[in-house]
């Protein structure tokens, strides 16, 4: 690890385009994912911006209602399938899991590269669908609208989602095998970082849920293309079956988005409170509990779809059970802060943001899990606000926090901390201004998915649009300083945060094979000794 002028690392080991596009190095593949999901993030963000601009006034005056339908559909499809689901696992998980467990790579490097190409192919299908007219079914592709009524590009977009699903399946498969078979000697399950536990639970959902949504959207495409009667009542099918099959995946998919973010927060809280996590085993098992219970709650999306009252009752109760492992995590993070030596670096700000916003998102989820309450709230802006608190306030805050925390490891350079704090504050304020009014306007009865609304709701929508503008600027700032930091920011050194974990014991950026020799682990990888000197460079 001696410092030579230009130590060989994964970034400067080969500069040709081929050395990137044909790489089998998990770290380079993570960067390929980072680039591509960023493109999709801004594409999805563009659609969100158009939605918010249209909703500035009660009338449908900026875009036609048909166009509006396509805008929110494309926003949903792109953000869910092409940004949120791959975000933390495919970028940070891909980069960090092999390093955190002391391995040279994931178990199947070629499959890892393949998963990225599959992702890009699915993304191209979706972009072609968007460019050649868009889709207007909503991201949920509900039948019979998607099977016969809609005359938009449902087949193309469905195939895009179908194809991308396999990228997610292969990532999950790779993580599971890697965690089982590639751990360094002495790295037992209960010495694993909680980030790895969270990704293991996520991977279980990826491999068990994704195939079901894959076959479901494939059947929609086949139904439109070949007139097989599976979901369309006109052909003898049952549209409720579509909803069951779709949500069997798509509810657990919410946990694909939030569990990795929880894993990131577990790491951040330890690193910036300089304490071992409180209740390690509880946090580890709560990830698994969320993954398992998450598969038993899909019926709460069907409360008003003609599902039987008894089924609704059971799904309502089981949905509330998810709150238990979620609360276990929140309480344990908070307890970790107690008597910790807390520093307020920007990753920690995102972690604090996550804990607060996820709690709001989670608690409002309980409102919606309550059967009678949901009848009132169903398909209003209340639910829009609820899941954006979980997905943006939760998943994106976790993603940005993790990206800042591991940026020095990924690139070898720091980022401007002042700007980072400013951007974080910007995002926090913008986010709350965008979505908090939606709780109120949803409770008052404004339905989702309409280009027009009653005039008395305008003030809330103006607030939302103003917030979205601030939020959008908040997203652009990190873009700029991250790119700037690649050349101009100071070098980070192997462990700028004084954090624990195998990834901080190797150079930044890491060498191609991560470790010169396979590490041998003799204790938990996150021991923050009480007297550990605090040295932030």
């Amino acid at each position, binding site marked *: 690890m001696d410092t030579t002028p230009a130590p*060989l690392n994964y970034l400067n*080991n*080969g*500069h*040709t385009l081929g*050395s990137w596009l044909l790489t089998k190095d998990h770290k380079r593949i993570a960067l390929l994912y980072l680039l591509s999901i960023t493109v999709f993030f801004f594409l999805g963000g563009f659609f969100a911006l158009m939605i918010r601009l249209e909703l500035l006034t009660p009338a449908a005056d900026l875009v036609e209602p048909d166009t509006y339908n396509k805008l929110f559909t494309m926003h949903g499809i792109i953000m869910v399938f092409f940004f949120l689901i791959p975000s933390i696992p495919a970028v940070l998980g891909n980069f960090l899991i092999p390093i955190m467990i002391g*391995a*040279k*790579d994931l*178990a*199947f*490097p070629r*499959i890892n590269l393949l998963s990225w190409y599959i992702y890009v192919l699915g993304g191209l299908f979706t972009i072609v669908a968007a460019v050649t007219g868009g889709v207007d079914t909503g991201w949920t592709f509900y039948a019979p609208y998607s099977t016969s009524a809609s005359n938009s590009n449902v087949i193309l977009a469905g195939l895009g989602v179908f194809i991308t699903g396999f990228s997610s*399946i292969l990532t999950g*498969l*790779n993580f*599971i*095998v*890697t965690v*089982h*078979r*590639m751990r360094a000697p002495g790295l037992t399950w209960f010495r694993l970082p909680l980030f790895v536990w969270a990704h293991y639970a996520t991977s279980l959902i990826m*491999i*068990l*849920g*994704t*195939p*079901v949504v*894959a*076959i*479901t959207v494939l*059947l929609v495409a*086949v139904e439109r293309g*070949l*007139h*097989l*009667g*599976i979901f369309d009542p006109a*052909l*003898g*099918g*049952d549209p409720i*079956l579509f909803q*069951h*099959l779709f949500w069997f995946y798509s509810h657990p998919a919410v946990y694909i988005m939030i569990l990795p973010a929880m894993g990131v927060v577990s790491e951040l809280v330890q690193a910036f409170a300089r304490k071992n996590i409180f209740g390690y085993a509880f946090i580890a098992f709560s990830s698994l509990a969320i993954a398992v219970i998450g598969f038993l709650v899909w019926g709460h999306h069907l409360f008003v779809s003609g599902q039987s009252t008894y089924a609704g009752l059971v799904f309502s109760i089981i949905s509330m059970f998810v709150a238990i492992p979620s609360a276990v995590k929140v309480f344990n993070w908070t307890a970790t802060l107690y008597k910790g030596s807390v520093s307020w670096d920007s990753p920690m700000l995102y972690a604090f943001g996550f804990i607060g916003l996820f709690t709001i998102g989670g608690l409002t989820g309980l409102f919606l899990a309550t059967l009678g309450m949901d009848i009132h709230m169903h398909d209003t802006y209340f639910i829009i606000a609820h899941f954006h608190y979980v997905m943006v306030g939760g998943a994106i805050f976790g993603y940005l926090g993790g990206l800042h925390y591991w940026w020095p490891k990924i690139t070898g350079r720091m980022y401007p901390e002042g700007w980072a704090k400013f951007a974080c504050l910007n995002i926090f304020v913008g986010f709350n201004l965008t979505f908090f009014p939606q709780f109120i306007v949803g409770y008052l009865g404004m339905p989702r998915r309409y280009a027009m609304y009653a005039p008395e709701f305008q003030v809330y929508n103006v607030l939302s649009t103003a917030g979205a503008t601030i939020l959008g600027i908040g997203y652009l700032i990190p873009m700029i300083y991250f790119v700037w930091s690649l050349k101009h920011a100071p070098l980070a050194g192997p462990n700028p945060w004084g954090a624990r974990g195998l990834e901080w014991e190797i150079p930044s950026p890491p060498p*191609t*094979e991560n470790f010169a020799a*396979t590490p041998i682990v003799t204790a938990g990888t996150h021991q923050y000794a009480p007297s550990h000197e605090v040295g932030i460079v």
Partner: protein
Amino acid sequence: MRSALSEQPHGHTPHHPYLQHHFDSMGQQMEASTLGMWVFLVTEIMFFGGLFMAYLVYRHQSPTGFQEASHHLNIYWGAANTAILIISSLTMAFAVRAAQTSQPRAAQVGWLIATMVLGAAFLGIKAIEYAEKFRDRIVPGPYFQWEGLYPKPAEQFYSLYFAMTGLHALHMIIGIGIMTVITIMAWKKQFDGDYYTPVEVAGLYWHFVDIVWIFLFPLLYLIGRHYHAG
């Protein structure tokens, strides 16, 4: 282009030529590969599971209609295909065994080719069956014709029939593709007792596809044969 990695001392002891660099040992590599295939098969179960779920729901909704529809499937072709696939599982198992016990190339390649021939025979019979359905106009869509009492459930039954057996046939085609690669590897004498993971993993896949058919055959052809509509 500089390839710095190869300049570094790669390993301490000479290792097996088929050991990938990120694994420590052949044992670890084999365990990872087989676990990977098992996990993949779990995803396959969930993938087919959506179709089986649809089948169960619709069979529950119109049991007599489904029974009537299933009478137009040719049980002899179905039974023959079941036998063919079971035998192909046996030849596949022999192929794995041949590689594992370092048997000569002729044995390994022979069993693999036998497996592929049986798989192709299955697909041939499936093609004959599909052609019969097209001839009798019981393919769902605008040209669907049904003489029986329950035309709607029958159309639905054949929707599911084509979706399920079609997806299964696609898996068979992919399986034969995989077997072709494995056979070429066996021809190049790559497999012996120390390294036979690809044969083993391909075998797991082949057996899985067979087992899917073992469920499809009774669900589509057999259940309710005793019932005579009309």
